[in-house]
């Protein structure tokens, strides 16, 4: 049974983008050690509540090696008073730094992946067209945001094609590294070759037109959307003011 699109997907396309921007700013403005982890916890709840909960797991998997690296770097190798965790002696200051950095990383990664999950190119382009913004710039944004997923799809196809031709992908890390070359080269060369073909096709379809693009179904920018974006801006400004006041005092 499909539950339909979640709140993040139904919202005006600018709102999840604004939320991601605000979360990124807050991740750096909130003081450690507990500000960034608290923000991360809030982002996890927000993602689950707005229908992009899948981003939480993906972001955690992406961040996990970096989290381990941060603990090793700052905790094990850090200076100052230490605390014993099993056989290890970890720097308390280093751990605090690692927790703050890990929280920042988790919050930004979860927010970005959540936004990408909710992102619908056609809705975004209609929203920008309705505002009279440059279609070329908007298309560039969309192409950039979609580059990752498109490369992933293409990589899967290339990998399958190479496997049918006898490529063995698996085993030890060195073996996997050796198998990367026959996948990466066709992936990159194919993507580069595709650029020209796609550019030609888009030009033939009026992308170069110097007229205002017609939005086919511009998404509603509701009062709730506008209020959310204003609240996010106010939150970021308040955090900035608070930190500035602290630094100046």
């Amino acid at each position, binding site marked *: 049974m499909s539950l339909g699109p979640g709140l993040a997907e139904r919202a005006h396309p600018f709102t999840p983008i604004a939320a991601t921007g605000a979360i990124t700013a807050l991740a750096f403005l909130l003081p450690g050690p507990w500000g960034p982890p608290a923000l991360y916890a809030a982002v996890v709840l927000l993602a689950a509540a707005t229908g992009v909960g899948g981003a939480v797991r993906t972001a955690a998997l992406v961040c996990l090696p970096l989290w381990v690296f941060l603990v090793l770097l700052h905790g094990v190798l850090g200076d100052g008073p230490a605390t014993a965790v099993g056989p290890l002696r970890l720097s308390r200051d280093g751990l605090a730094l690692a927790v703050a950095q890990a929280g920042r990383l988790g919050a930004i990664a979860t927010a970005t992946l959540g936004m990408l999950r909710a992102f619908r190119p056609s809705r975004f382009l209609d929203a920008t067209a309705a505002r009279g913004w440059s279609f070329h710039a908007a298309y560039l944004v969309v192409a950039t945001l979609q580059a990752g997923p498109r490369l992933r799809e293409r990589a899967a196809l290339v990998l399958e094609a190479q496997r049918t031709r006898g490529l063995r992908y698996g085993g030890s890390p060195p073996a996997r590294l050796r198998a990367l070359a026959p996948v990466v080269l066709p992936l990159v060369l194919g993507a580069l070759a595709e650029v020209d073909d796609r550019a*030609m096709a888009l030009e*033939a379809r*009026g992308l170069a037109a110097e007229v205002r693009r017609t939005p086919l179904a511009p998404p509603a920018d509701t009062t709730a959307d506008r209020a959310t974006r204003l609240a996010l801006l106010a939150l970021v400004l308040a955090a900035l003011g608070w930190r500035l006041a602290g630094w100046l005092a």
Partner: protein
Amino acid sequence: MARVSAPAEEGLVGAGLVVEGLVFRYPGAETPALDGVSLECGRGLVHWLFGPLGAGCSTLLLAAAGLAPRHTGGTLEGGLTLLGADPQRDAGRRALLGRVAVVTPAPALQLSGVAATVEEEVAFAPANLGWPVERIRAATAAALARLEVAHLAGRAPAALSGGELQRVVIAAMLVLSPDAWLLDEPGAALDAAGRRRLRALLREEAARGALVVVASEDADAMLGAADRVVLLDRGRVRAAGAPEALLAGDEVWREGPGSTSIAALARAAGLPAPHPLTVEEGVARWSR
């Protein structure tokens, strides 16, 4: 090999495609892809560019669309006008915007990449041209219906089969009601029913007064659709004329792309030219 120019049918010259002494070289290529091509293709007819691999058919279409050498690199010399405008100049391209349909051999690469549904995909070009929404909706529905893919309107373009995608890509050009069609192997991904629909569409578009130029190696598919065939080989025009006359002869087999499968069969059986081109002609000839 003699260099032949291919004049258009009387009275249909000015507003179509006029090519004079066109020479095109890809970057780093020793030999030109187009080597002095002269050609006139009038509106209201289906022109078929026919030649083996490397003959220059695709390159000629790209040059006519103003896409080569801008996107491909290389050098171009000679004269070229499409619908009375020069596609190699900015002013010409502006004049041709929305009037020329270009269909390349890879339908997946013609997708906008931003449409969630087939309907949005087909509406992409008219939306870019700033048409009113009502006009876009009506034209999109009509184009999808003419390609017999109206039932796909709500599907995601990325989820379509190759044949469905090819029809959608053609519908995405048909929506503009273009004055000129430049199609490169448009039937390659289509099944038999799709090729029949395509042939009918090309005839309908020509009857509407559009210029239709198709590059195709598929003689079976193009016979009956084309009014005129232009034989190209190594960047030169070798011959031009009615498809039935040229394809039945032996010239298309000498360093050429060949002919229909029935003609190939007749030739293999040792029958002298003119060869039958269709099953019906073959049956009539062999039952004598």
